[in-house]
């Protein structure tokens, strides 16, 4: 990403085709979700959210225990667990597995975690062809773009754009008909599925009590990815663990409804270990890669730990007035939307885009739809504090810091605050007739680019209050004076006694 955050925002806002694609697709998702959670199931839905939040909290508070349980169970079922400290170690482990098994073609099901570690680029460099088999991801791979949305990677593409892409890259006739476009992708992918030596998936959940990897989907490509090739590698963040299969009664209901407005996705797969004696399908070798990549750092942060509750449903993006305007590619990092705005800075640490946590009006729509009740605005506020702390360290003349210092000082001095009001009254431009102002200098110039600004009131509230109720105001002043006198008298009395 060579352009700046603000430049990418600018590009998205100016592209009217893109604007209408994002708006209509996210609105469809948001409406689908709303239909599933409104009355008469609203009460049940809220109970599910509370339960999900509590299960996630419990699991993360006891993650050490559950991680070991996962490893024991996966090994019992003939699989292998590989612990990956960071993205690089995960990529290296997958490359090693590919070499060991002589893999030249790997099919992949949709995995944001694989995007996070940059897996495709690494595989290509080592001569392993990665093929995305989720339709949206397939489109993105053909167009050379990263996913636009954590659930719907090609959300921003119009049918015409996809038809053009397919005709260029797949050598087929231009055709905008969705079924025929899907069939064209299917023909390409069937061949890849048959030839691939390795299947790479993510994991929606990893069940600690059984070691099962749980994957949800609508297209059936995950079933093929995880069962046809000789080798299956599942890449999962350590936060994907839930204690029991029974907990899925909560999470599966929430995930389908929140992500796509479905009560349940079309397919739910439970995969534990490799093919056993007497079984007719499944991989010969199964590897579960458990990825840290900054997660244990988030886990250690008591305030922001809840970031790890995320089940990647994308509901926060669909409702977010900012995501719905700037789109997925404006965000730095693999994850977009409100969850990306709190996840990416924590994954990337000190070098992250400092403006990102500020790109929010803190409207809270994301927290309202989050199925696991992550308080995203509160996380953004915490990140804002950290950004400013880092920026002002060793910089005594940070303009914003100085500005707020002065402001804070004034706000603790009501008389001065009032006098500055008089002063501003005298120097600020005014239409004189109470009309709103069309252009202002300084930091308010950005305001008046698109809006008018109110003139200062000719008389402030406190002045009007005094005029309205001279007696009450005088009484108030007298009582303040009296209480001050009382304080000083009791002080001197105290001294005499001593």
């Amino acid at each position: 990403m060579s352009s700046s955050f603000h430049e990418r925002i600018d590009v998205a806002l100016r592209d009217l085709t893109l604007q209408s694609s994002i708006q209509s697709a996210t609105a469809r998702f948001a409406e689908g979700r709303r239909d599933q959670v409104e009355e008469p199931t609203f009460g049940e839905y809220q109970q599910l959210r509370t339960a999900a939040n509590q299960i996630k909290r419990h699991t993360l508070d006891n993650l050490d225990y559950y991680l070991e349980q996962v490893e024991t169970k996966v090994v019992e079922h003939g699989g292998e667990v590989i612990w990956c400290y960071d993205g690089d170690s995960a990529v290296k482990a997958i490359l090693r597995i590919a070499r060991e098994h002589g893999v030249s073609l790997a099919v992949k099901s949709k995995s944001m975690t694989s995007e996070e570690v940059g897996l495709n680029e690494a595989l290509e460099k080592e001569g392993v062809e990665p093929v995305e088999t989720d339709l949206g991801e397939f489109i993105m791979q053909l167009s050379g773009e990263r996913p636009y949305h954590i659930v719907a990677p090609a959300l921003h593409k119009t049918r015409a754009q996809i038809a053009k892409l397919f005709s260029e890259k797949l050598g087929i006739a231009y055709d905008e008909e969705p079924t025929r476009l899907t069939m064209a992708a299917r023909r390409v992918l069937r061949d890849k599925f048959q030839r691939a030596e390795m299947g790479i998936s993510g994991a929606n959940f990893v069940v600690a009590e059984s070691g099962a990897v749980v994957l949800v989907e609508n297209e059936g490509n995950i079933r093929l990815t995880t069962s046809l090739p000789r080798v299956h590698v599942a890449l999962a963040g350590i936060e994907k663990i839930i204690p029991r299969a029974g907990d899925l009664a909560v999470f599966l209901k929430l995930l389908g409804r929140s992500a796509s407005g479905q009560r349940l996705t079309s397919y739910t797969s439970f995969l534990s270990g490799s093919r056993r004696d007497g079984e007719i399908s499944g991989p010969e070798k199964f590897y579960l890669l458990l990825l840290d990549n900054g997660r244990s750092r988030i886990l250690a942060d008591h305030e922001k730990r809840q970031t790890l509750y995320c089940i990647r449903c994308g509901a926060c993006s669909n409702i977010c007035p900012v995501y719905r305007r700037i789109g997925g590619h404006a965000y730095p990092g693999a994850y977009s939307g409100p969850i990306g705005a709190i996840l990416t800075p924590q994954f990337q640490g000190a070098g992250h885009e400092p403006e990102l946590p500020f790109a929010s009006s803190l409207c809270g729509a994301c927290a309202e739809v989050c199925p696991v009740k992550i308080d995203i605005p509160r996380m953004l506020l915490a990140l804002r504090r950290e950004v400013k702390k880092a920026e002002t360290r060793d910089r005594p003349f940070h303009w914003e810091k100085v500005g707020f210092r002065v402001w804070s000082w004034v706000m603790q001095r009501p008389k001065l605050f009032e006098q500055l009001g008089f002063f501003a009254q005298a120097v600020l431009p005014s239409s004189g007739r109470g009309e709103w102002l069309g252009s202002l200098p300084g930091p308010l110039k950005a305001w008046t680019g698109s809006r008018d600004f109110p003139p200062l009131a000719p008389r402030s509230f406190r002045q009007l209050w005094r005029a309205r109720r001279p007696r009450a105001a005088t009484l108030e002043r007298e009582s303040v004076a009296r209480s001050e006198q009382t304080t000083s008298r009791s002080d001197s009395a105290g001294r005499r006694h001593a």
Partner: protein
Amino acid sequence: MSQRVSLFVTCLVDQLFPEVGLAMAEVLERLGYETEFREAQTCCGQPAFNSGFVAEARGVARHFLNVFDGAEVIVVPSGSCCSMIRHHFAGLFHKDASSKQATENLAARVYEFSEFLVEVAGIEDVGATFPATATYHDSCHALRDLKLKEQPRRLLRNVRQLELREMELAEECCGFGGTFSVKFEDISADMLDSKIEAILRTGADTVVSIDPSCLMQIRGGLSRRRLPVQTKHLAEILASA
């Protein structure tokens, strides 16, 4: 029922929209409450807090605690400022037990204006008359942090000669967001465009809200476009007889 209500008018109302504070006082007095205005009040500290400057916010918050020490009930004409006090003050003083205690005592006594009327005073009809076709904009912090959705609407429905029309996306942010409105001016302005379009589609001549900052954003946009739609704080509607 001569309970004393302490007004926290907020910095924005004090300097830019004093009529809102006066209207709030009038409604409360008409209902038999005794009002007081503690002159040393300034701001709740939210501008610094939302910008990441905690120490600066804490100083202002502590000033607020001192000013309102001993107040029975505090009423605020802003959902956002009320939410700041109720939900974020405690976090500012997590290392300072006495201020934290003062905050917790205070937070339970701070109410947004419509919340106070409906939930505390138990009043949904203040006897107001305001001839208008109005639409209500949900301010984010009132709606989501304070759960105030029906309270202001019920008050509005009981205003004589006022027709309330719901706009589409009433719950969607107007794009203000404090410094967000200038740091990300383009996004903020685009959000405002959508809000204004939704307002115009209702055919209403008046937009009502319980947050002066949303009204500043919305009126700023209406004024720039020279649109004949007025903005009113709920208190101004309820104060007119």
